[in-house]
C-alpha cells in the first residue's frame, strides 16, 4: 500500500509530526518511509553527544535546520566530573558547517564551547537564528561579539547559567543598527557592564523582543527606560534590584511596569531593596513564573509580593521564605505547578531560617496542581513524606535534598524508606526522583516495584548492598538516566543487569564499589555500551583487581568507543584487545 503514495504526499503527512518519538517510529515502518523521513527531518535532539558521531548524523539527516545536544552528565553540575573530560562542541560545529549551510538553530547544554566555535557559527550560516547555551563553558565575551556582529537575522541569544570569561561588556555594542530581529536575549550570567546606551538602542529597535534577561550590572535606575522601550515584553529578568530610596525612581519604575500588559515571567532580583518591590504590583496578577532565587529578602516581603500573584504557576525562591511564607503561598496561589526552594546558606552547620518539612506539606495540601518540586531543607520525616504523597499523587518530579545527606526521620530516627516508598507508590506518573536521607535497600525495593514511569533517578549516600541497585535496574521499566554517588553498589548488580543498560541513555556511578574488572567485563559483553572509567589516580590496572574505580560512566553509543578526545584519566574498552579472546 505504501507504494501507491507518492513521496510528496508522505512527506507532507510527516511534516505534521513534530515529536521525535513519532518521527523515530515512522522511520521504522519500512525502508521507503525511513528514507523519506530522513530527508525531511529538520530538527534533532541528541541527549548524549557521545552516543553518536557527527558523521553518522549528517549521513542520515542531510537537511537539518535545528540541532539540540547535551554533553556532560548531570553530576558535572556539582563538580563530580573532572575538568577536561570532554563534551567539546567544536567537532560538531566544524562538521555541520559544510553539511548544513541553512542551519538556523543550535542549542547546547553542558558542553565546552570555544570562541572559535562561536566565530565559526557566526560566519557559516546565512540564516542563523537561535543560539542557546545552557550551563556551557569555554568561551569569552569575544565569542559573543562575533555572534552579535555577524548573525544578521539573530532571533535568540540565550546564555542560561553558562560560565563565560567576561573580558568586557563591549560585545553588546557589536549588534549592528540593522539588527532588528531579536526576540530573546538572556545575558543574566555575565558579570561586566554593557554600554547602557547600546542596550537601550538595541531594545528600542527590536519590536519583536519578548524575552529580556539583564545581568546584575544593570542598575535599577536604568530598568524603567529599558522596559519603556519594550512594553511588549513577556519575560523580564531585572538587574540588581536596589537603589537609593527615592520617590521619583520608584514612580518612574512603577509607571514603566504598568505599561507592560503582556508580562508573564520575572527573574533577576539581585541585591533586592524590598521597598522597590511594590513598583511591580501592577503586573503581578498576570505573572505565571517568578524566579526569586537570588533575592535575599525576608519572608514577610516575599509574602507581600507572592500574594499579589494569584496566577502563579512556577516559583523559584530561597529558603528565606520559611514555613510561614509557604503557608501563605499555599493559600494564595492555587494554580501553582512548580516550586523550587534553594538553600541560602548551604554550608552553614546550623539552620539560619525557619524552613522545615512543614512548608512542603502545606504547599502539597494547598496547591492541587503542584506536580514538580525541588526542595532543600534540614529535616524530614516519614510522616511528612507520606502526607505529601497522599496530598499530591499527581507529582511528576520530586527532588528532595536534606542538607545532611544521611539524616534519618528526625522524629523516629528511622530510615526514610517508608516516606519515599509512599511517594513512588502514590505518584504513579512520577518521572523524576532525587532522594536524600538515611535510606536502606528497602526503599529501592519500593522503587523497583512501583516507579514504573520513572525516567531519571538520583541517589546519594544510600542503600546497603548490590540488592538496592538490582531492584532499580530490574524493576524500573522506563528508566533512562541513573546517577549514583557514594553508595555501596557494585559489580554483581551491574553485570546482572547489563542488558538493561543498553535501554537507558546513561548510568553514572561515583565513589561506589565498582571494580575495574567488572567494567572490562561489561564492556566486553555489551559492544554498544561505552564503559568509561574516570579515575584520576592513574591506570586502573596498576591497582589490585578488587579496588573500586573512582567513577564509572556507562552509556549506549553507536559511535566509536575510543573517542578521540579522551583525556588521560579516562579508560574505555580497548577494541584491539578483543582479538585476544577469539
Amino acid at each position: 500500500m505504501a507504494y501507491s503514495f507518492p513521496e510528496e504526499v508522505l512527506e507532507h503527512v510527516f511534516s505534521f509530526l513534530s515529536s521525535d518519538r513519532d518521527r523515530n517510529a515512522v522511520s521504522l515502518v519500512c525502508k521507503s518511509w525511513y528514507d523519506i523521513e530522513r530527508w525531511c527531518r529538520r530538527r534533532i535532539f541528541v541527549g548524549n553527544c557521545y552516543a553518536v558521531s557527527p558523521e553518522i548524523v549528517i549521513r542520515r539527516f542531510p537537511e537539518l535546520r535545528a540541532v539540540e545536544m547535551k554533553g556532560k552528565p548531570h553530576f558535572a553540575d556539582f563538580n563530580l566530573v573532572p575538568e577536561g573530560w570532554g563534551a567539546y562542541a567544536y567537532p560538531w560545529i566544524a562538521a555541520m558547517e559544510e553539511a548544513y549551510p541553512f542551519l538556523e538553530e543550535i542549542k547546547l547544554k553542558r558542553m565546552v564551547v570555544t570562541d572559535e566555535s562561536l566565530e565559526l557559527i557566526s560566519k557559516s550560516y546565512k540564516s542563523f537564528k537561535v543560539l542557546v547555551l545552557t550551563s556551557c563553558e569555554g568561551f569569552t565575551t569575544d565569542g559573543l561579539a562575533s555572534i552579535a556582529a555577524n548573525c544578521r537575522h539573530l532571533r535568540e541569544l540565550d546564555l542560561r547559567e553558562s560560565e563565560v570569561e567576561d573580558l568586557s561588556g563591549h560585545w553588546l555594542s557589536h549588534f549592528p543598527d540593522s539588527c532588528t530581529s531579536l526576540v530573546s536575549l538572556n545575558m543574566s550570567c555575565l558579570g561586566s557592564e554593557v554600554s547602557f546606551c547600546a542596550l537601550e538602542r538595541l531594545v528600542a529597535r527590536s519590536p519583536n523582543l519578548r524575552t529580556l534577561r539583564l545581568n546584575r550590572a544593570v542598575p535599577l535606575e536604568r530598568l524603567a527606560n529599558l522596559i519603556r522601550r519594550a512594553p511588549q515584553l513577556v519575560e523580564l529578568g531585572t538587574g540588581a534590584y536596589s537603589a537609593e530610596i527615592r520617590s521619583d525612581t520608584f514612580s518612574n519604575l512603577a509607571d514603566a511596569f504598568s505599561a507592560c500588559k503582556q508580562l508573564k515571567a520575572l527573574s533577576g532580583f539581585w541585591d533586592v531593596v524590598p521597598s522597590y518591590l511594590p513598583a511591580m504590583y501592577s503586573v503581578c496578577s498576570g505573572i505565571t513564573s517568578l524566579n526569586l532565587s537570588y533575592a535575599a529578602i525576608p519572608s514577610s516581603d516575599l509574602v507581600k509580593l507572592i500574594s499579589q500573584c494569584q496566577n502563579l504557576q512556577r516559583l523559584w525562591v530561597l529558603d528565606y521564605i520559611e514555613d510561614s511564607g509557604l503557608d501563605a503561598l499555599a493559600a494564595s496561589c492555587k494554580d501553582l505547578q512548580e516550586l523550587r526552594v534553594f538553600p541560602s546558606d548551604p554550608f552553614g552547620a546550623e539552620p539560619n531560617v525557619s524552613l522545615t518539612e512543614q512548608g512542603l506539606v502545606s504547599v502539597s495540601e494547598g496547591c492541587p496542581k503542584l506536580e514538580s518540586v525541588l526542595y532543600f531543607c534540614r529535616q524530614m520525616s516519614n510522616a511528612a513524606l507520606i502526607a505529601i504523597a497522599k496530598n499530591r499523587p499527581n507529582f511528576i518530579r520530586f527532588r528532595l535534598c536534606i542538607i545532611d545527606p544521611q539524616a534519618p526521620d528526625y522524629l523516629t530516627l528511622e530510615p526514610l524508606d517508608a516516606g519515599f516508598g509512599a511517594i513512588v507508590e502514590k505518584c504513579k506518573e512520577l518521572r523524576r526522583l532525587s532522594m536524600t536521607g538515611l535510606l536502606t535497600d528497602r526503599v529501592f525495593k519500593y522503587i523497583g516495584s512501583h516507579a514504573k514511569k520513572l525516567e531519571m533517578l538520583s541517589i546519594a549516600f544510600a542503600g546497603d548492598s548490590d540488592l538496592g541497585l538490582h531492584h532499580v535496574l530490574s524493576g524500573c521499566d522506563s528508566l533512562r538516566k541513573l546517577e549514583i554517588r557514594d553508595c555501596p553498589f557494585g559489580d554483581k548488580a551491574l553485570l546482572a543487569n547489563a542488558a538493561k543498560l543498553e535501554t537507558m541513555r546513561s548510568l553514572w556511578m561515583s565513589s561506589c564499589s565498582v571494580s575495574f574488572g567488572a567494567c572490562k567485563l561489561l564492556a566486553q559483553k555489551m559492544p554498544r555500551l561505552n564503559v568509561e572509567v574516570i579515575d584520576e589516580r592513574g591506570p586502573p590496572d596498576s591497582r589490585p583487581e578488587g579496588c573500586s574505580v573512582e567513577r564509572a560512566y556507562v552509556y549506549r553509543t553507536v559511535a566509536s568507543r575510543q573517542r578521540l578526545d579522551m583525556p588521560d584519566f579516562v579508560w574505555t574498552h580497548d577494541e584491539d584487545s578483543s582479538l585476544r579472546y577469539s
Partner: protein
Amino acid sequence: MDSDLNLKATELRLGLPGTIDAISPPKNSKRSSPDSDSATPPPKAQIVGWPPVRSYRKNNLAEAESGSFVKVSMDGAPYLRKIDLKVYNGYVELLEGLEKMFKLTIGEYSEREGYKGSEYAPAYEDKDGDLMLVGDVPWEMFKSSCKRLRIMKASDARGLGCAV
C-alpha cells in the same frame, strides 16, 4: 520481606562455569570520601559536590554576602563614587583615600570629639540602616557592617558627635 532474592539461581554468569565469584565488592563505610577507606566520617565540609548546589548559584550567594564595594556620596556633589573597602588596611588609609578622591580634608578622629576642626565628617550606613560616625568600631567590624559611606558637612554632623 525477602532479604535475598536468590540472585544466584538466575544469575548471568560471565566467568567459566564452576568458578566462584572471587571479587566481592569491599563494603565502603557510607561516609568515606572518594580517596580514603577509613571508617571515620569526614567533616561535612569535605564532601565534594555536597550539598548539590550549582557553583553558579553558590557564587551568586557568596557575592551577595561579601561584596566589598560601597557607594560614597558627598553632600553637594553631583554624582556618587564607589570604593572597594578591601583595598584599605585601616581607617587612616581609608580617610586618606577619601580625601584624595573628593579633594578635601577630613582631619583626625578622636573618640571624644569626632573629627574636630575639619569641614567634613565621614559617616556610614550600617546593616540596620542607621547613620554612624566612621571610626568608632574596630576596622574589621566596620568593613563587614558598612553598606555605604556619606561624607557630610560637619555642620550637619553635629548630632554625630563632631565638635565644630
